Structures are given as C-alpha cells and as structure tokens.
C-alpha cells in the first residue's frame, strides 16, 4: 500500500494507538517498552513530515472519520496552520519522550508504563486537534487532550498533585463544556456547519452583537490559551513531573489552545470580521493586560517551575493578542509565536527538570553557583531565555517583530507598550538565573548539591532545542512562506 496524504491523516491516530497498545503490552520489560515509545515517536514524525510536504505542495487532504447526520460530522482536513502545529508537536514530542525516559528513570518514578501510555493518547489527541476539519472535531480532540493529560498531571499521586489536578480538570472541563461547546453549537446553528473555511463562516451574515458574544464564548471557552481569568489551571498544573510540564507548556496543551484561537479567527470568524469587532478590541486589551500581569507575577516566584508557568501565561497572550488584532501580519506573528515560544519554553522546562533530577533543587535562590557542575544545562537555559525575551539571533525575535508590524496597521498601537514592557520584565526574571549560576558562589556547601551531575538523557534534549532556537531564527522566512496561503485571502 502506498502512502497517500489521506492515509497519512489516518496514521496520525493509528500510529499513537498502536504505540499505546505496545507500551501497555510491553509494560513488564521497560527497555523494550521505551524502544517502542521512541519508534512510535519517530514514525509519527516521519508521517507528519510527509504530510507537511504534501500540504506545502498545495494538497489539502481530507478524511471523514464519522458522519453523524443532521449536518454533523467528525472530519480531518489538513491546512498549513494545522500542518505546522502537527510538525511542532510531533518533533517536540519525540525529544520530550527521550527526555521523559531519562527523567523518569533518573527519578525512579513509579507507574512509568501508565505514564507513557497516557502520553501516547495525548499526542494522538494533539494530532487530532491539528488536523481537525471542523470545530466539532476539534472540540472532541480538545476534550480528549484534557482527559488524557489529567492522569499525567496527577502522576505523583500525593495530596498536592491531586489538588493541582482537580483545579486543572475543573477549569478546563467547566470552560470547555460551559462556554466552548455552546459556542460550537451556536456556530453550527447560525452558519449551518462548523467547517473551517478560508475567509470564515460568518462574514456578512451575523450582527455585531452575536459575533461579539460568540467571540467571548470562544476566547474564554478555550481556557487552554490561559487568558486571565481562566488561567489558574496552568500554575496549578506544575505539580506534574517535568516531562509533563514540558508537554503542557510547549508540545501540546497550551499550544492546542492558542492554535485553536488562531484557527477560529482565521477560519470561523474571518479576519475582517474580527478586525471590525469592538469586542475583539477589548479582548486584545485583556490579552495585553495578561501579558504584563503574567510577567509581573513570574518575577515574584522563587520556585523555578512556577516562574516558568507564569511566564507561559504571559507569552501565550501574545498569540491571543495577535489573533484579536487580526491583521494578517499580527496573525502571522501569532502563528510563529506558537512555534518559537514552544522551542524556547521547552528548553527552559527541560533544564529545570535536569536540575531537579540531579539534586532536587526547585528554588531559583538556591541555584547560585550550580553552573560549574552542569554548564551545558545552564548554557541551554541562557539561550532559551534569550529566545523568549526576543533577542536576535534567536527564534523568539520574529513573532514579536511581526506583532509590532501588525499592530501599526491599527489604532491601538499603544498596546505595543505591553510587549516592550513584557520583554523588559522577561530579562529581569529569566536572565539572572543563568548568570548567577555561573557568577555567584553557592551559599551552602554542606551537601555539595552543586556538584551532582544530571543524567545524559536529560541534558541532550534541552541542548538540542536550544540549538533549534538558533536554527529557527534563520528558518523563519521559509515558515512564513509556508503559511502565506492561509493569510492571502484576508489581506
């Protein structure tokens, strides 16, 4: 049987399904199990790369999963944005798996088979989100992603993990069923379908009031995008083991949220409709507020993972902001931010995990002087931080640049202030960590914690992703060219 793009769409679900079954069956033989896991990740990545090439060549493969009747169906259709998200998620998933194996072994974590099995389900759900051809399908996979990551968040099983997990599940489920699902149904009722089409479904058919209401329902219903005030699940989810945090913050979960945000603006509402909506303007302001508040709170956190979590909240709102500004350039910036932030943030999280797995340090204030014992980790952290801040020659500069450009199209240029302020704050709360690790002396030498060395498998992946932020700086133009067909209709 020859590979076709349609088959590739099916394989997005089939490969993780087989992998998940293999992981469960090989649960008694950890080495074999982990090999299956890596083979699955590689196979998925190869498949996605083939799909990305097909979409780049102009193909828009489509696959009906189930036709329910009454105008409802579950359907895959891959377009450039989805292909980009799939490529991002599957490549980082492979690295994250490598890292996860090292981390879980390094910390002698329990129930590793269950852990990796749920990971397989979660990556399948992410692929489903990426490839969804209509909003109903996207919603289904969005929910599966929430449910499958819940056991990962609570993996440690202690009281703290359960409390965090409870908040995680409650906020994500309540917003998605209470706000997002009604929005999806309303879309179906008003537009007669929830299919993603270029230029949107609503153009010229609905009044400003209904558009505004729907926009609010969608924006807060997609709580994975963590706009204030539906952001609290994210800091609470940091009770999870670090590979899960990386998965949440970079590979799939929050990215699925902001990806959905971009997707509804481009393909459901239509960029012109959002640009003309007064409600979108207020949501843009809320996003700007979230950017600043996220950074401000991040500064106050001494726990490294908490600091990174709040940083994510701020960084995600760049994407929401771009989506609500809704000029082609701003949206292009938003789409790039999905990718560029992912590589920067996964580097930081993996570094945090390496530090933890070698000497169980979680507080920033205790990391002084550790740079000598693990120089690679802190160099990688430094590069990741530079990318997040948005300095050249690292990938993170591009989305900010495009957002600046996109905003000058519009009257609310003063929102640029939020971006500048945020970048300054990023410098304050991210850069000193690495600098102090190298420059300052460790305060307490009693346990020699600063001399413990992290396992190789937890160092190699962050070094790779840090290098990738450098490579992506030069690859930004091809990526923009790849996305061009998406935004041509709107400008």
């Amino acid at each position, binding site marked *: 049987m020859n590979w076709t793009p349609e088959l590739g769409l099916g394989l997005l679900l089939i490969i993780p399904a087989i992998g998940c079954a293999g992981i469960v069956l090989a649960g008694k033989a950890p080495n074999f199990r982990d090999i299956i896991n890596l083979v699955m990740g590689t196979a998925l990545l190869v498949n996605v790369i083939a799909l990305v090439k097909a979409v780049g060549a102009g193909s828009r493969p489509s696959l009906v999963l189930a036709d329910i009747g*009454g105008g409802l169906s579950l359907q895959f259709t891959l377009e450039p944005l989805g292909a980009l998200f799939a490529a991002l998620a599957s490549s980082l998933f492979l690295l994250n798996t490598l890292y996860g194996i090292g981390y879980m072994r390094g910390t002698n974590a329990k129930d590793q088979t269950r852990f990796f099995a749920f990971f397989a389900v979660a990556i399948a759900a992410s692929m489903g989100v990426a490839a969804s051809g209509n909003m109903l399908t996207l919603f*289904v996979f969005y929910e599966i992603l929430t449910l499958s990551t819940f056991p990962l968040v*609570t993996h440690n099983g202690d009281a703290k993990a359960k409390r965090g997990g409870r908040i995680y599940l409650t906020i994500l489920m309540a917003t998605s069923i209470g706000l997002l*699902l009604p929005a999806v*149904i309303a879309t179906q009722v008003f537009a007669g379908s929830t299919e993603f089409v270029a230029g949107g479904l609503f153009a010229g058919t609905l009044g400003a009031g209904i558009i505004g209401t729907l926009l609010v329902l969608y924006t807060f219903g997609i709580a994975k995008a963590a706009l204030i005030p539906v952001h609290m699940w994210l800091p609470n989810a940091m009770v999870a083991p670090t590979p899960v945090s990386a998965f949440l913050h970079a590979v799939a979960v929050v990215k699925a949220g902001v990806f959905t945000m971009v997707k509804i603006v481009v393909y459901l509402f239509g960029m012109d409709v959002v640009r003309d909506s007064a409600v979108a303007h207020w949501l843009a302001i809320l996003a700007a507020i979230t950017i600043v508040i996220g950074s401000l709170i991040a500064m106050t956190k001494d726990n490294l993972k908490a600091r990174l979590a709040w940083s994510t909240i701020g960084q995600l709102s760049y994407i929401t902001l771009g989506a609500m500004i809704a000029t082609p350039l701003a949206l292009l910036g938003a789409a790039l931010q999905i990718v560029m932030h992912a590589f920067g943030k996964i580097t930081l999280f993996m570094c945090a995990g390496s530090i933890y797995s070698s000497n169980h340090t979680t507080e920033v204030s205790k990391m002084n002087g550790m740079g000598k014992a693990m120089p690679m980790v802190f160099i990688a952290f430094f590069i990741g931080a530079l990318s997040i801040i948005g300095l050249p020659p690292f990938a993170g500069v591009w989305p900010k640049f495009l957002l600046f450009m996109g905003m000058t199209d519009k009257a609310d240029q003063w929102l640029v202030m939020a971006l500048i302020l945020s970048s300054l704050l990023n410098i304050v709360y991210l850069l000193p960590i690495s600098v102090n690790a190298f420059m300052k002396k460790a305060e307490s030498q009693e346990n020699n914690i600063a001399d413990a060395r992290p396992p190789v498998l937890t160092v190699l992946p962050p070094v790779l992703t840090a290098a990738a932020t450098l490579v992506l700086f030069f690859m930004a133009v091809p990526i923009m060219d790849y996305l061009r067909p998406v935004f041509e209709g709107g400008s």
Partner: protein
Amino acid sequence: MILESIGSSSAIGIDALWSNAAALVVVIPLIGGAVAALLGRGRIAWAWAVLCVLASFILSLFMLNLVLGGETIGYEMGNWEVPLGIAYQIDSLNALIITLVSAMALLALLFGLPTVEHEIDPKKQSMFFGTFLVCVAGLLGMAATADAFNVFVFLEISSISTYVLVAMGAKQNRQALTASYNYLILGTIGATFFVIGVGLLYMVTGTLNMSDISSILAGMGDDRVVRAAFAFIVIGLGLKTAMFPLHTWLPNAYAFSPSIVGMFLASTATKVALYLLIRFLFSVFQTGSSFETAMFDFVLAPMAVTAMIVCSVQASFQPDVRRLLAYSSVAQVGYMLLGVSLGTAAGLSAGLLHLFNHALMKGALFMAIGLAGLGLGVVRISEMRGMGKTMPFTAAGLTVAGLSLMGVPLTAGFISKYYLVIAALERGWWWAVVAIVVSSVLAIFYVGKMIEAMYLHEPAKHADGSVMKVKTPVLSLIALYILVLANVWFFFDPSLPFGLAETAASALIGGEGS
C-alpha cells in the same frame, strides 16, 4: 381468547406467534409473573423472568422491524371490533417505547441477580421477580394499547407492582417503606385524576378508543368538559412523569428501592408515562387548540425549564448518590418536556430522542451505582472514593455514562441536546437555550463530584495498606457495558431512534401544517 391464541401458537406454528405479537408482548410477562411467584427458589424465578422478558424483547424487535418498514400494527383483542373491543396499535412512536422497556427489563435482570440476592430475603425473591414481571407487563401494556381505559388498567398494574417493588428495599433501609407509601398516595391521586379525565372524555364522546375519541373531538369544537378532561389527564400523567412540581415522590422512591428496581424505573417508568402524555396531547386532543397551546407556552415550558435548573441545583447538593441521580432525572424529564412544549415536530422528536438517550445513560448510571453498593456498600458520594482503583471497570462505565449525562460530544447525550437546542432556536426560545446551557453546567458539577470521588480520592485500604480490590459479577458488568457502549454508539449512529422519533413526530404534528 388470549389464552387460546397462546395455546394454538404451538399447534399452528410460529406464524400465530408473530401475528399475535402485539398482544403477546404484554401477555407473556403478565402470565409469567404469576408463574414466577409460584417458583420456590430465587434463581429459578430469575431464570424464568429472563426467559419471559427475552420473549417480549424478541417480539418487540419483530414489531420494531415491521414498523421500520413503514407498517402500523393494529390488533383487536379477541377479534372484537373497534370501538367495542380493546385495540392495540403499534406505530413508530410506541414501537420505540416498547423496545426500550423490554430491552431495559432484560438488561435489568441480567444485571440484577447478584444485587437481588444481596438485598432481598431469599424467601421473597421469587415473589420479587414475579412482581417485577407484572410491572414490566404493566408498562408494556400502557405503551401498546390504543384504548384509554385500558391505559388506566395497565397504569394501575404497573403502579401497584412498583409500590411493592420499592417497598422491598426495606431490608436495606426502612425508609423504603415511607418512600413507597408516599409514592402510593401520590400515584393513586395521579391515577384517579387520569381516570376522571378518561371518564369525562367518555361522557362527551361515548367511546374509549383513542383514535375514535380523537376523530369525534375533531368535529366538536371547543368544549368545557373536554378542557376539564384535558386538565385532569395532564395532571394525572404529569404526576407519573414526575413533571415538576409533581415530582416529590420520585427521589426517595428511586433512592431507597432495591438497586435493580431503581435502575429499571429510572430508565422506563417515567418514560412510558411521558409517552402517554405525548399520545394524549398530540394524538387524542387537538393540537393547535387554543388551550393546548396556552398550556404549552405558559405551563409546560416554564415548568420544564424550572425543573431543568432547580432540580439540577438540588442534585448538586445531594450527598446520597442515588438521590443525586434521581433529582437529575427530574431535571432531564424537564428537557423532554421542553421538547414537547415547543409544539413543533423538531421539538417533539428532540424530546423523544432525549427520552431514549436518557434511558441509556440513567440506566447505566444506576447500574454502576448498584454495583458500587454491592461491592463497597456505597450510599453516599464520599463512599465512592477511590473506586477508580478498587472497581476500575465500574468506575470507567460510570464515567462514560456521566459524560453522556453532561452532553459531551462522542456520547449520545450530546446529540439529543443538540437537536433540542436547534428546535428551541427554531421557535426563537432563547431563554430555553440558556436554561439548557445552565443545566448542563450544573450537570458538570454533580457528575464531576462523582468522578472526583472515584479518581481523586484515596481508596479504602486493608489494614496492611494494600488497596482493596472488589470483584464485580461478570454478567452485571456485561449488562452495564452494553448500555455504556450504547451511549457511545448512538452518538455515531443516532439514525434508529432519531428516525423513529422524527417519523412519530411528523405523524403526530404533521397535520398542523407547521
């Protein structure tokens, strides 16, 4: 005559069985009930009950197949012609109900043997299964008959047997007795109201056959006696349907009855009463008459919406799991009544679809809770803690059924809510859509409480700290999973129940020109 037809079926052969299917589907469990009571031992009586219900189920499938082919099955008892004799009539509306009731009875029996052996005195078990069969026969009779007085007879058969069945929970909890007594009082009032209404109709029309009444009423114009009959019948059936605020008997009756009874009643009893309400509202009385429209808009719809919200709130505050599910049932009846009160074909078919789907989800939920009660002695939500570890299969089934109750896509509950929203918007009832959303959010809350207890709290442990593992009877689990899978199946392919509901709705309302 009935007995003759049974006797001759073996002589003439299988044809006689099929041609009398409409009657036999009721008669077999009715007579089987008497036989079961004579069988001395619980397990034999159970096997016999399974056989009887299985026969009914097969017959109902046979009739369903005919109805799907576009036929309407008419049957005259003892060959007495309408309007003198009692007629049975099976069309797309009640074929669905009859199949639902017999299927649920079969699943209840498959599920229930271990719980009955646990909850009911060995000496009383054969009587219990006998009463259960009579109850099934009563519900099937209510659904199958086309004669208004015959409805009353079967209503009483099912009600009286239900009082007995509920009271049998007394071995577990003495409160079952007061619950049953309460239900008896209210149920009798309901039945009395109903029979007064039928009497008034008889006074006006001189006939008891439903289609006969309908055609005579059509030629009559507005009449005060007919209005009075309408009011009595709606209140009487409303009580049996647990229409808010006539639902007060329901929570305790469900909560304190034996598990198998709670499960069976939750998935059938109110459904059959609702079916009758629909039959009377749309087929016997004139749709579009001013008092009926006024009743829909100003009584039924507001009550339905109130039930959806108030009872969902009440459910959220119940510590007792089965009372929680019972209050949720009243709220869900609100969804169905909302569909009915829209008065459009789309609304009615959405309501009917929700009726069917709700039977699937509530049946599964009550089964799972029954198993939890059997394995862990669960009564309160807090006692469900750690079920995800101690009873993983039951907990997983309960979760899927709970998601269906919330109305999450990939479960049947989504489909019926979706059609209900569409139907409400078609009439411009925005407030109804808001109520559906609010009620669904409350459902997240009360279902979430169960899921939280099962998966987020530590399970009960042995003294040595190892997690208690509970063995669940395999047959019960199979019954549970049939319902759970049905909840998923009817998301992907709702054509069977929805097709029937649409056909029935357009047959009932189509003439109105809407």
